[in-house]
């Protein structure tokens, strides 16, 4: 018989670190599952105590409330589902436009913060500090009540650059009329998020070593060209990750819309749970919706991030 002196030890699998590594992971997963089960059971039990049943059938009932802005045809005779979809479209509208505009504003202001011109530098500093340090809700109400409704009422019509005009009925750009609610929300989100992006852009540019400036200059590039061709592309690597969180913030902050009367998905959801009493279901739907939107933004930005990273050649 061939006796392995180690066989006794080998059989004691609990002495094997590999076993414990796997066992620990299974244990953690198991406990996590138990925790979720207990929470779910608790919810279920509490709902039962209060006589509330979970279910999504109500989505097919008639919504019977009007919605102010309709990118797709809708009447109060349609279902809650269609109403929620309409709200989602309204949300996406302001998110997409907001992300584009805030990028333009934020990048320009971030570059302006480093300008050689004293006035430009300080104006952008004032912009950043005011918008970054006051609450967004206050800013939204200011844009809506003071600028859109107030100023338009007293001045009748405010003309900007010839193609933008502001009246009591909203914002008109190239003949497209945007409601004051949409306009105020869009501008409010743009300016607020833009201030944070400006700081991110400034920090990104400053993180590029001075040597790169000097090298660009010695090649005879003008400062503006050096910025565009040499500095900014390198700064992007630092800028994109924190920029992603600002986009996510903008998307989530758009849910303040109902404060100024814009019917976004959160607004429609609120009316829905108020009328049906289905708070838990509606909140689950909302969480799912915002999660999907946020993960899509983050996914898109990750692709972009991979694209701008240093490529090994």
């Amino acid at each position, binding site marked *: 018989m061939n006796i392995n002196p180690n066989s006794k030890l080998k059989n004691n699998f609990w002495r094997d*670190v590999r076993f*414990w*590594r796997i066992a*620990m*992971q299974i*244990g*953690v997963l198991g*406990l*996590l599952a*138990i*925790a979720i089960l*207990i*929470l779910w*059971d*608790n919810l279920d*039990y*509490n709902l039962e*105590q*209060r*006589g*509330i049943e979970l279910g999504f059938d*109500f989505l097919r009932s008639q919504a*019977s*409330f*009007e*919605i*102010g802005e309709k990118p797709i045809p809708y*009447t*109060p*005779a349609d279902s809650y589902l269609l109403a929620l979809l309409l709200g989602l479209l309204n949300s996406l509208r302001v998110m997409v436009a907001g992300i584009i505009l805030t990028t333009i504003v934020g990048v320009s202001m971030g570059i302006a913060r480093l300008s050689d011109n004293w006035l430009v530098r300080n104006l952008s500093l004032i912009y950043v500090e005011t918008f970054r340090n006051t609450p967004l809700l206050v800013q939204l*109400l200011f844009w*809506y*009540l003071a600028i859109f*409704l*107030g100023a338009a*009422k007293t001045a009748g019509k405010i003309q900007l650059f010839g193609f933008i005009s502001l009246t*009591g009925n909203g914002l008109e750009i190239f003949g497209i009329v945007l409601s*004051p*609610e949409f306009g105020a929300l869009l501008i409010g989100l743009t300016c607020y998020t833009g201030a944070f992006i400006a700081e991110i852009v400034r920090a990104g540019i400053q993180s590029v070593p001075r040597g790169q400036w000097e090298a660009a200059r010695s090649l005879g590039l003008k400062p503006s060209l050096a910025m565009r061709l040499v500095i900014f592309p390198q700064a992007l690597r630092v800028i994109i990750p924190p920029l992603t969180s600002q986009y996510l913030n903008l998307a989530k902050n758009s849910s303040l819309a*109902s*404060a*100024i*009367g814009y*019917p976004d998905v959160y*607004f429609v959801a*609120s*009316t829905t*749970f*108020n*009328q*049906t*009493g289905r*708070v838990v279901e509606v909140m689950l739907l909302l969480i799912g919706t915002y999660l999907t939107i946020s993960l899509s933004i983050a996914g898109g930005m990750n692709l972009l991030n991979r694209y701008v990273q240093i490529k090994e050649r």
Partner: protein
Amino acid sequence: MRKWSSLLVALMLAILPLAACRQRTEKAGKQTVSRLDTVKQRGKLICGVSGELPGFSFVSSDGKFAGLDVDVCRAVAAAVFDNPNAVEFRKLNAKERFTALQSGEIDLLSRNTSWTLSRGTSVGLEFAPVVFYDGQGIMVRKDSGIKSLEQLKDKSICTQIGTTNEQNLSDQMRQRNIPYKLVVFEDINIAYATYVEGRCQGVTSDRSQLLSRRSTLPKPEEHLILDTVISKEPLAPAVAKGDAKWHDVVQWSVYSLIGAEELGITSQNVSEMASNPNPEIKRFLGTEGELGTGMGLTNDFAVRIVKHVGNYGEVYDRNLGSKTSFNLPRGLNNQWSKGGLLYSPPFR
């Protein structure tokens, strides 16, 4: 390895209290504790009100809540504690109110809430008797020349999220085929500010609320409440469904206010009334019979209410009637014997 084992311990610690929680609720569930006992144990009533409507619920200049809705809360507190001030008021907007009740954050909702079928069934409320019969109206600027719903064609109308008003207007305009734009706000103050700024040509709400809010506008005389009434809005206090004992207390507290007026009992004469030979009055005051103890209160619960808060007529006069700037006629909110709809079942 170290990481995993610490995670394991953390999770175990997290689960323990969870499991313990469940056990406790299960025990409580079996005995089905009534809100009445919870309230008594706590020593005060938690009442959800609006706080933004003079006449119904408003914080007056001395920092106290006042109004018809507030007095309903105070009446219930008087019945339970013999102290109308044993109330904690929670300000709720229209959207939050039902969730606050469902989740047990408040004991009683007394917040100009219209009694509707779905709120009484699927939303999970149990309504007490109506304390104010109202109807929805529309307010416009006088100089707009608008006199009817038809003239609101293609105009914007402001209102608040989570109200019957949002739905009623949709119904009316759909029925009459009038296109319009609805702008809905979370905060009632912003809704009115927006109307004042001219964004909306009209604002819609219960008529009593329009009246109440008009009094707070910069120039009340410039605004007109249209004669058209587009809905029935029976405003009633509500409790969470499935607690008959607590519902009884709230229900009979409201009937005490109404019944006292019918029997001619006021806060002034309630102590003299004790010697009144009328058996109905005797039962109402609890000097005869066991009406109060039957529902977990004292037999003199109605006396406590009238003594501290007054009867319905006194409450109305104090908050909305001739003693106030609203000077709102009683109309439907009068005793049934005087052409109104207030009718208390007998105290027997």
